[in-house]
């Protein structure tokens, strides 16, 4: 009963946090505790419904073939018989969206709970929770969207929430700039996505995902292959920024200016995977265009490697995690690009747990150390903060890919599908990234949690509202990967594109090698950062490859390039346009005015003000008329003088 209700009223899931947002904004704002209660309560209820809905989907195999869709008319343009555009809003439930629905609402609930402790005493406490609720509503709306435009709307709304939350500490200039950067970067990419959507609606006449997928499958009735390629690439531009892919990843590390729960929720577990989700949702489009698929895969693999090489030299704890997120998102894109929705979504699922866990752990550390962020200044935290440290270590094992933790299974899945697809170079890149991932993540762990304690730090364990989410997510990071083990791949039975693939045989080679790679990475980090107490080797290495080190530490100077472009090219042309406007366009206008003024100046000389001059002119005029009449004859005169005579 209840499951049926949840299935057919899935719109309640985004609606509840939206209501929480409204209540907090208009009523509960003056009372922080009440606001937090409403927000967490709304989110928990939404999570409850989402779980029921997901349960409903995952107990009925018919939804894998035929998604449950219900929609209402939102807007119609034109009348029947003419080119008409109808836009619906609705719910589309299939295993992919049900999984996302559960994941987002589950993680959001625990992160909101965590925020109660983390944000305690902040003057913007209520506002923060209202933003979190709004974000949850938008994100859940995005997940259940049955229409591409609806998805785009939610897509922009999560962008707005991200903007508001990154800039939450708006008195800091860095936060303000980071928020703006995030929004504008995503805007640039959304321009591409918008063009793609426009192209799709013009070509296919619908934006409903199910209908669109049917029409795209027979796209030759509507359009050419070239147009399809263009459309797929345009659509992919949106996810490039949203999911932090090269070259529009620059906003994501800066987004860490926001409060840490925000980084965990939005910039690790949910919003940034929206791009991956969109590509997954639109895989029917990309699938038709091999070029676009390759583009997705290459972008993903390159981003994964690229971000990992940056992460190994960063010093701030959240920045390391941010680049790690970029890198993992690249993994997901790679999986989708080689055609495996299963692997991509699986990594997204496991990543959400362990990355949220690690961000919350980092938040706990920052909370304890009063926002001292440099990992080199931490050390030995494990003694004072056992829960935080151990859960973080679990996250580290998961992301490094140590079996049987969650990350191992999903990463292994990606490596296997890449290898099976025959993409050997991409496989090599992904495998090397895995090595780097294990290395930099354990570098962080060894530096921050092990080694010697720093006497100037006085860490303490965080309150229960913060620890409970850590423990829950750690449990998740340990276990959620078991859904997709090669022996019993429940995951692949439900979430797939095209045909469910049961490879049957287990790719032992890939599995063992990825485990070995992970262990090697951790071991290298161990020798460099824990065993070697004085860190002489590290310093020597950094000294020896100084240029490489600088390149990595400065993020390949990409930010500087954008900054230069923005300040010189964009602002420069703005200045030029403005000068053109006030001097040329306005110059012409003022010139016309000036012409009128000058002619007036000239003509007023004739106006002497002396009566006798006027009388003279008057007389001459009469004389002229008389002469005309006498010498030219009356007919000509009347012609010249017109109706006067």
């Amino acid at each position: 009963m209840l499951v049926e209700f949840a299935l057919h009223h899935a719109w309640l899931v985004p609606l509840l946090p939206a209501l929480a947002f409204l209540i907090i904004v208009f009523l509960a704002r003056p009372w922080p505790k009440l606001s937090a209660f409403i927000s967490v309560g709304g989110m928990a209820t939404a999570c409850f419904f989402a779980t029921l809905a997901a349960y409903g989907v995952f107990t009925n195999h018919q939804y894998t073939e035929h998604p449950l869709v219900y929609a209402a008319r939102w807007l119609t343009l034109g009348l029947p018989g003419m080119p008409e555009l109808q836009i619906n809003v609705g719910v589309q439930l299939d295993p992919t969206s049900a999984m996302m629905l559960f994941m987002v609402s589950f993680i959001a609930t625990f992160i909101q709970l965590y925020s109660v402790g983390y944000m305690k005493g902040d003057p913007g406490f209520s506002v923060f929770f209202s933003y979190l609720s709004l974000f949850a509503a938008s994100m859940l709306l995005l997940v259940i969207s049955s229409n591409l435009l609806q998805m785009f709307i939610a897509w922009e709304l999560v962008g707005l929430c991200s903007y508001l939350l990154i800039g939450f500490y708006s008195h800091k200039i860095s936060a303000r700039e980071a928020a703006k950067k995030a929004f504008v970067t995503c805007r640039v990419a959304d321009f591409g996505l918008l063009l793609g959507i426009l192209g799709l609606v013009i070509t296919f006449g619908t934006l409903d995902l199910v209908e669109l997928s049917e029409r795209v499958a027979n796209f030759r009735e509507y359009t050419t292959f070239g147009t399809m390629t263009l459309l797929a690439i345009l659509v992919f531009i949106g996810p490039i920024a949203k999911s932090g892919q090269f070259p529009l990843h620059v906003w994501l590390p800066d987004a860490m200016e926001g409060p840490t729960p925000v980084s965990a929720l939005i910039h690790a577990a949910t919003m940034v995977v929206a791009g991956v989700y969109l590509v997954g949702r639109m895989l029917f489009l990309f699938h038709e265009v091999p070029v676009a698929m390759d583009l997705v895969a290459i972008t993903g693999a390159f981003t994964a490697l690229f971000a990992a090489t940056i992460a190994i030299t960063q010093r701030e704890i959240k920045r390391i995690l941010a680049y790690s997120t970029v890198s993992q998102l690249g993994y997901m894109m790679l999986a989708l690009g080689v055609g495996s929705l299963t692997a991509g979504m699986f990594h997204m699922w496991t990543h959400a747990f362990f990355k949220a866990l690690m961000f919350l752990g980092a938040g706990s550390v920052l909370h304890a150390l009063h926002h001292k962020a440099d990992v080199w200044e931490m050390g030995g935290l494990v003694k004072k903060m056992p829960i935080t440290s151990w859960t973080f270590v679990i996250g580290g094992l998961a992301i490094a890919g140590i079996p049987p933790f969650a990350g191992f299974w999903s990463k292994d899945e990606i490596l296997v599908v890449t290898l099976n697809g025959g993409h050997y170079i991409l496989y090599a890149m992904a495998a090397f990234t895995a090595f780097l991932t294990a290395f930099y993540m354990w570098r962080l762990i060894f530096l921050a949690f092990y080694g010697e304690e720093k006497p100037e730090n006085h860490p303490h364990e965080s309150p229960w509202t913060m620890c409970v989410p850590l423990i829950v997510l750690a449990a998740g990071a340990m276990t959620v990967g078991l859904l997709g083990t090669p022996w019993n791949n429940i995951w692949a039975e439900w979430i797939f594109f095209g045909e469910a693939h049961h490879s049957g045989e287990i790719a032992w080679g890939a599995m063992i090698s990825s485990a070995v790679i992970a262990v090697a990475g951790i071991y290298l980090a161990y020798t460099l950062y824990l065993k070697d107490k004085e860190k002489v080797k590290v310093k020597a290495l950094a000294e020896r490859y100084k240029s490489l080190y600088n390149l990595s530490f400065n993020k390949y100077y990409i930010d500087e390039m954008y900054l230069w472009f923005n300040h010189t090219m964009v602002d420069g042309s703005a200045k030029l346009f403005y000068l053109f406007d006030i001097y040329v366009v306005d110059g012409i206008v003022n010139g016309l005015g000036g012409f009128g003024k000058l002619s007036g100046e000239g003509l007023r000389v004739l106006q002497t003000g002396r009566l006798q001059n006027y009388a003279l002119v008057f007389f001459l005029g009469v004389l002229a008329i008389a002469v005309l009449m006498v010498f030219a004859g009356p007919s000509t005169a009347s012609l010249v003088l017109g109706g006067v005579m």
Partner: protein
Amino acid sequence: MSFPVLPVILLAPLAAALVLVFVPKDEHKLIKSVAAIGTFVSMALSFYVYFGYDQTLGGLQYVIRHDWIQDLGVTFFLAVDGISLPMLLLTNLIGFSAIFASWNIGTRPREFFILLLVLITGVMGTFIAHDLFIFLLFYEVVVIPIYIMVVIWGSSKRVTKEYAAMKLTIYLLIGSGFLLVGVIALFTKSISILGAPDMSFSALAIAGSQLSAFDQKWLFALLLFGFGSLISMWPFHSWSPDGYAGAPTAVSMIHAGVLKKIGGYGLIKVAVVTLPVGAHFWAPWMAVLGIAGVAYAAFGALAQKDLKYVVGYSSVSHMGYVMIAVACLDVIGLNGAVANMFAHGVMAALFFSMIGFIYEKTHTRWIPDMGGLAHQTPKLAVGFMMAAMASLGLPGLISFMPEFTIFVSAFDNYGGLAVIGIAGIIITALYVLRAGANTLFGPPRTEYDHLEDIKGVELVPLVVLGTVLVVGGLLPSLLFDMINSGVVPLHAEISNVLQLGGNL
């Protein structure tokens, strides 16, 4: 139909203005209350008309028609259809908010509010008149109060307020001069076609569409220049930023919010319908000018440091979208054009009212002199950011769907060319966010610590316009269904003519 609701809507502000003449000039509270009541009556009634209008029936409703000057075929013809109704509603929403946005006016409030009410009446008149003569009459009524209001209550920044007022007035009068020539030529030609003089839109539409292609082309060019300079079509836009910057808040609100839209409204309801062949001929040029306007003004806005100039250029940029949409000459495009005028009106009015409050409190509009205001005046910041987000076309606010429909139509009709226009959204995001960030966020400045947030009646513009902004964004069908009911028959007429004379 016994109750003459349109004349009442039209005359309520005028009646309030008449009452104000007899109110002692020191009774500031009373003056403002009378003005507020007058505009409130209009607003409430126009809501009543909006929701009472029968969309399935369509066409002109709430018709009032009396003979006036029979020799010229002028009739006092008031009516509304799906295109003029949103504009009427918009005028009243903004008019009502404008009264509250100028609540703190200290010098000569009585004269100010009388002029403001006359201005509102004039603008409303243009939108509900369906006789070209009456339309022009109301239009000319509008220009004069604006001049006086800018000169007396305006502010001098980059340019003096006298210059701004002069530029605004003369520019618009020159535009309307060309317009008048076109209208008179159209009228004289129509007499021989119709057999009797008739100035009503519908009669002129019948006559105009029978004109030769050549006549249609040059007449349309005249009308395009007239209406185009009013809607600040590039390159006839330069009155707009200066004018808005010089004008007092209420005038900026009404001017950017609705008065400018008379240009787009006239273009659709008069020029395009009457001269479809001419419109078809000039459409590519309109599209090019529109696209140029979008990109050009967006860059112009990026270079500004005065808040009002930012919004001034931004409104030029947004009106470029309307030009593109009109140039598409299809149902979706025209829908988008009207809807975008409505959306931009609400958004620009909210923007200007918030900037007005900021200026009133900080005595500056210079962006580098501000920062961190969100901490001292949070509600003001909310209003500002809502307007800013609407300006950059955030989905969920009113301006997204209009822009989207325009993009659909423009992309369909003009393809690659439209992409340049659509790219304007990036620059828009950049300048809007930059202005917002540098004004509202960052470290709070101590000199603004004493500022009071907007409160009481000052919240009215935020509440009224903000509600419309959000509701229109979440339920765009409220707006679009109405517009669609007006656009579809109009487009049917145009395409009819174009197909009959397809080879012209």
